[in-house]
């Protein structure tokens, strides 16, 4: 034991991609059934649930497919950190001693194309959207463009990161994009927001993921290989952070919410970045993975150029990142994305990740989400 009070005893995934005959709720039920089977428990054993979704107002309606057992079932939406919030709330419910066994599930089914909304719902003025500034992709373009100038990162490094994620996705039967793409194809695809090209970005898609949690001391009743949730944190932006959907910024700069969530998670877990064996980072685009590597403490700003050239982020490298292909190969069903990351690190720590297994008996996993309107979530798990 390691002082952790919450254990993950089951994970389940509905593949990510496009499924025209499935609703988000259908996919959520598949993920739940797989997580229950993995944990060796029945739906009637589950004492509480949290569900995350962007497109579905009431993802708790999945009970219609699972069974009407009367449990407390709370729906969560928190931007791109929705799944991290569902996981954090589920873990805290166990931690508080209110219930011993519960589930966090995320599901979504997005239309193709860039995310959009009424800017006023994000506390932005209408003109911001009318004149074409209310897109998330242009923020990622600006952030990596500035980062590359400040820290000597090349466009070839961005292409190498995307190519790695497509290559990892090709080894993952549940991934959306399973065709490897060369650096040349990635750099040669149309520029969407300079310096980012089409194949450097992830796409909204469909999918679901679920995680069964229990009180750590009960974990061995269910499984021989419990994975302990050492920390799960969510943070939002502070004034001065360079964030998506900011019509203006003050002159004084502050680190972003990923940095805050990451530091809080390391402190809660009593684990440092040097202890982590397998990493999942929010790669909305290849540049985001590069920046997040430093924001989560895995390297200094600028080190990424050499790390990527040396293959450090590959499955068999010292810092394996996005071993299942990340968002670039899996797409982003917002409600499910962070639970997919947890699903992947749990498989890796159990040594059951198949063709994409990280060698060397990994013991500690790390996941990070980031997105609009400036929200980040981090979790740390260990054997």
């Amino acid at each position, binding site marked *: 034991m390691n002082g952790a009070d919450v254990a993950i005893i089951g994970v389940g995934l509905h593949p990510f991609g496009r499924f025209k005959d499935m609703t988000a709720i259908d996919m959520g039920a598949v993920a739940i059934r797989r997580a229950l089977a993995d944990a060796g428990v029945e739906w009637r054993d589950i004492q509480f649930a949290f569900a995350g979704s962007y497109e579905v107002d009431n993802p708790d309606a999945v009970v219609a497919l699972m069974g009407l057992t009367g449990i407390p079932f709370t729906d969560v939406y928190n931007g791109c950190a929705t799944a991290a919030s569902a996981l954090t709330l589920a873990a805290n419910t166990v931690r508080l001693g209110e219930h011993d066994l519960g589930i966090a599930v995320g599901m979504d089914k997005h239309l193709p*194309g*860039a*995310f*959009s*909304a*009424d*800017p006023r719902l994000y506390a932005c003025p*209408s*003109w*911001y*959207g*009318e*004149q*074409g*500034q*209310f*897109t998330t992709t*242009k923020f990622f*373009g*600006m*952030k990596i*463009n*500035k980062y590359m*100038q400040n820290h000597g990162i090349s466009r070839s490094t961005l292409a190498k990161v995307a190519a790695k994620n497509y290559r990892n996705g090709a080894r993952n039967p549940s991934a959306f994009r399973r065709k490897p793409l060369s650096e040349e194809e990635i750099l040669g695809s*149309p*520029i*969407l*927001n*300079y*310096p*980012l090209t089409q194949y450097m970005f992830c796409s909204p898609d469909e999918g679901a993921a679920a995680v069964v949690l229990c009180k750590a001391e009960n974990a061995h009743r269910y499984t021989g290989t419990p994975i302990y949730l050492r920390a799960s944190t969510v943070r939002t932006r502070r004034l001065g952070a*360079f964030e998506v959907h*900011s*019509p*203006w*910024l*003050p*002159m004084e700069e502050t680190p972003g919410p990923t940095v805050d969530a990451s530091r809080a998670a390391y402190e809660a877990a009593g684990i440092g970045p040097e202890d982590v064996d397998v990493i999942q980072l929010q790669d909305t685009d290849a540049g985001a993975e590069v920046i997040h590597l430093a924001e989560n403490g895995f390297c200094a700003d600028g080190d990424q150029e050499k790390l990527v050239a040396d293959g450090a982020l590959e499955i068999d490298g010292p810092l394996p990142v996005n071993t299942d292909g990340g968002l670039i190969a899996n797409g982003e069903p917002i409600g499910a994305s962070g639970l997919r990351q947890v699903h992947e690190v749990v498989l890796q720590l159990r040594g059951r990740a198949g063709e994409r297994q990280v060698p060397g008996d990994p013991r500690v996993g790390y996941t990070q989400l980031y997105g609009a309107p400036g929200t980040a979530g981090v979790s740390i798990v260990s054997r």
Partner: protein
Amino acid sequence: MAAHLLDRRGRLWAWTTQNYPPPSPPYAGSIGKDFVPFGIGYVELGGEVRVETRLTESDPESLSTGMEMELTVVPLRTDETGDEIVTFAFRPVA
């Protein structure tokens, strides 16, 4: 609250280009074959604030961080009565 006039000129702090038509709505500019790519960036005004703005240039070769920029207006679209709708943007100081 009181009105406070900002400089019309400043330095480019961060930038990218918008090469595809943003989802419409909310985008009110021309889309489809009439879409014209534009730049987007933050311009630092008088050491007081950074404002996000459209840029007149969308060629990465014509933009660089730290360059001097000034306020201008650019056409956004033509409305149903044929009137031209304009909006603010920043352009490099020649």
